[in-house]
């Protein structure tokens, strides 16, 4: 993904009908789509969907996407803060989203160094934000 391009999963946020959106998400994931794919800013489709407060889609991804654990750990830079997707849900005060992410056990209430290291998605993030290296 590059800036200006969109991941198919990310675009499901634009479908107004939740049921249709869920069908599209299930189809995409069954054909190999991953919510952990990031754009060149290191932000994953999962992160964008959390920021869009798409609770139903996030719940579906937590259930069916095999890559969702990594997506929950992926560190990205959003809202001027660095952190995993749960941080953006907290900063937007999305209580339902926070509860959902914690309930499925993939998002943690404490980010460890191991999570941090395993959650870095790609090399370009390191080149873009070299200070990640300071703690990884």
């Amino acid at each position: 993904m590059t800036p200006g391009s969109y991941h198919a999963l990310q675009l499901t946020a634009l479908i107004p009908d939740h049921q249709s959106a869920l069908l599209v998400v299930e189809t995409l994931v069954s054909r190999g789509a991953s919510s952990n794919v990031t754009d060149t800013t290191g932000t994953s489709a999962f992160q964008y969907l959390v920021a869009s407060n798409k609770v139903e889609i996030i719940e579906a991804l937590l259930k069916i996407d095999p890559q969702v654990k990594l997506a929950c750990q992926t560190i990205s830079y959003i809202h001027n803060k660095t952190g995993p997707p749960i941080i953006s849900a907290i900063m937007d005060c999305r209580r339902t989203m926070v509860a959902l992410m914690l309930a499925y056990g993939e998002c943690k209430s404490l980010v460890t160094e191991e999570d941090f290291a395993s959650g870095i998605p790609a090399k370009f993030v390191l080149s873009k934000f070299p200070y990640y290296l300071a703690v990884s």
Partner: protein
Amino acid sequence: MHQPLEASIAEHSDLFNLFIELEPEQAKTFIPMEIPNFGAPMRQRTLLDYVNVAVSNMERAVATARGRVGALELQAAQKEKDAAALEAPSEEVPAAAQDTWQAVYQKFDKAVADQQKAAALAALRQPAHNAGTVTATPEDEELTILKKALQMLAYYQEVQKRLIALDAQTFDQSFPDEEYMFRADLPIVYRQQAYPYMQAVQSGPAMVYTKIGTYTRESVGDHGLYDELYDAVWNGDHDKMRALCLPSEEGTENATTLLQMGVQMHTRPSNPYETSKAYFVNIIGPISRSVYSSVHPIVRGAPGSQMGHREASA
């Protein structure tokens, strides 16, 4: 990077209760570590330190806002008093003296005074906003600030109470042997006084050499030798630079006596509280280039060097 607990407190969210319940151990000695400032002395504070500072800042903000609201209330009371005085009827000119020149003058004077009073009264009664627009009055604005400050104070006091109930510790309590102590008693604007580095800048020699680092600036110690190094760079004395910075082939030098190449010099600012205007003289570029090229001419790549000939022949 922010931890969920840290983010929830930063956003003044009640979600902090959830994360304290989930990770009570973390809350006790947690040191928030935002990556760009990781390792900087100013970041060596626990969550309790931050919350303590937030409480004291909010207490100051509440006191200031209360002072402003009080001043505005006094001002409003004075206005009312002035208006009441202006609204009081002026003395009537005695009827018996109406045919004298003094009576005419007094009548004229009274008319002018009444006009002035009416104008002053209108000015006092005039609303603070322009007609047709909705703008908060200064009193409303100050009351809003006070209300917000009180809300924030209550929030931080609640977090503080919760952390203290968990036996959370300050950084000084957790790490009593650390060199850089965060002094919570200092207001944030003077926090640079808490660090030996800044104290050296403010009260030490006029020039200070420190290691180049984005977030930490550690003094490199011996001042005289770095003067020599700067002179050597200025004069292009490669042998001198090599002798000061690099180990010899025998390797007999003590590594600690070798100078750092990545150093910067900065002068003491004239205003001790003004750190942003300190002059930084960065010599890592010239030093590293000249030392490196003098030791390893093969990688210099300049025209005429060995590398240049190889490229040309290829």
